[in-house]
């Protein structure tokens, strides 16, 4: 049986804040929510390695930092490698008695979709293969938002970006979103999960689990982006929830090879509810939407089969 989740209600969430306000993330940026909650789970004995990206530039414009835990940014493509170095160094320093061997220090690598799916993928794969005890958190806003909304390997099919414009012939991104969490899971690391801030307790429990396992862990978090997805900033969390309610985004985990869906969706919503709030999908025709709905239906079938029972229910609204 699965142990009781650590975070069940809002009252289980620590009060201490390790992300200070005054950062420059856009109003309504759900990355702020994700990072804030991530740090509440991790606590002060934590070192964060941050890839180049929105969170990095917005939280550390010299002479200001929003971080209350040790934090380093080195470059875009090497977050996992830097984290590997930190983890190995702490091991060596503990072995040599230079730091207290009993002290547990969380190492978190934090990167966006560009820094993970694309330019940082090699370093990530290397870190996973070598088995460093690092939790890698991917905040996925589905494009290169920091440079002004260019498509990435994480951009979903049909989405408008500045490099997948909606023109006379091409309508948004042609290719599908890379199944990054499954690719990571194929490295057979102890823990892989997908989460979104619409289900904060689920997300925080996954962070907790990821920090506890002995070895690499990976938590892939959907991060609605008001600027790049073109929605009213107040809908960030609504969209995160809608992504799951429509099964466009399924919150699952794979713990020691055991796959489970952690947020079941008894009554599934039509994908149109998710799309209609976002400007990046405003060019979709009804036909396009139905085509996507069929793809989602197939994916739901696949997931239900994988789990062995109906965790994602039928389309009802």
């Amino acid at each position, binding site marked *: 049986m699965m142990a009781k989740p650590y975070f069940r209600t*809002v009252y289980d969430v620590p009060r201490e804040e390790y992300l200070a306000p005054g950062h420059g993330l856009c*109003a309504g940026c759900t990355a702020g929510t994700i990072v804030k909650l991530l740090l509440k789970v991790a606590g002060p004995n934590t070192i964060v390695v941050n890839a180049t990206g929105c969170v990095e530039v917005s939280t550390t414009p010299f*002479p200001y930092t929003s971080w209350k835990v040790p934090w380093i940014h080195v470059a875009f493509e090497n977050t996992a490698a830097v984290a590997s170095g930190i983890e190995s160094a702490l091991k060596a320093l503990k072995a040599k008695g230079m730091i207290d061997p009993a002290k547990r220090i969380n190492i978190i690598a934090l990167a966006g979709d560009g820094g993970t799916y694309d330019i940082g993928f090699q370093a990530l794969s290397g870190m996973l293969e070598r088995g460093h005890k690092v939790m890698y958190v991917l905040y996925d806003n589905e494009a290169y938002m920091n440079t002004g909304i260019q498509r990435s390997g994480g951009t979903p099919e049909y989405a408008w970006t500045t490099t997948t414009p909606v023109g006379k012939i091409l309508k948004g991104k042609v290719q599908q979103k890379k199944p990054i969490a499954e690719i990571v899971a194929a490295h057979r690391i102890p823990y892989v999960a997908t989460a979104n801030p619409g289900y904060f307790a689920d997300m925080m429990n996954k962070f907790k689990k990821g920090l506890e396992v002995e070895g690499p862990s990976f938590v892939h978090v959907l991060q609605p982006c008001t600027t790049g997805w073109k929605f009213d900033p107040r809908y*960030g969390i609504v969209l995160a929830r809608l992504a799951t309610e429509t099964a466009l985004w399924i919150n699952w985990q794979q713990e020691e090879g055991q796959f489970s869906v952690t947020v079941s969706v008894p009554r599934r919503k039509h994908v149109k509810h998710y799309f209609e709030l976002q400007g990046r999908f405003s060019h979709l025709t009804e036909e396009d939407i139905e085509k996507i709905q069929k793809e989602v239906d197939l994916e739901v079938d696949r997931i239900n089969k994988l789990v062995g029972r109906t965790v994602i229910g039928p389309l009802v609204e």
Partner: protein
Amino acid sequence: MTQEKLLGWKELPLGGAILEPGNSERRYTGDWRTFKPVILQDKCTRCLRCWIVCPEPAIYIIDEPYTTKSGRQFKFSVEVNYDYCKGCGMCVEECEPKAIDWIEEEK
């Protein structure tokens, strides 16, 4: 927004290190706001949903007892810190009892 003194190379920490954790608290992002959320303490059920979702964070828990007009007693309240609130409205949207007003800022 506060302006830090432009220190010379001798005074600055080597390599751009920032030695004071969380000092972005001196950057007041409240002036980004065009609308502001106002928590209606008598309607608020203290579910803390707004506190969870606020991305700044600009919603604080105040440990002071509060009794609503209808006589309901709470050990704490939730307040918006307008020094930082950028006025995204996420808290308003997430508030189930509709206990957060959304008011246009005066120019």
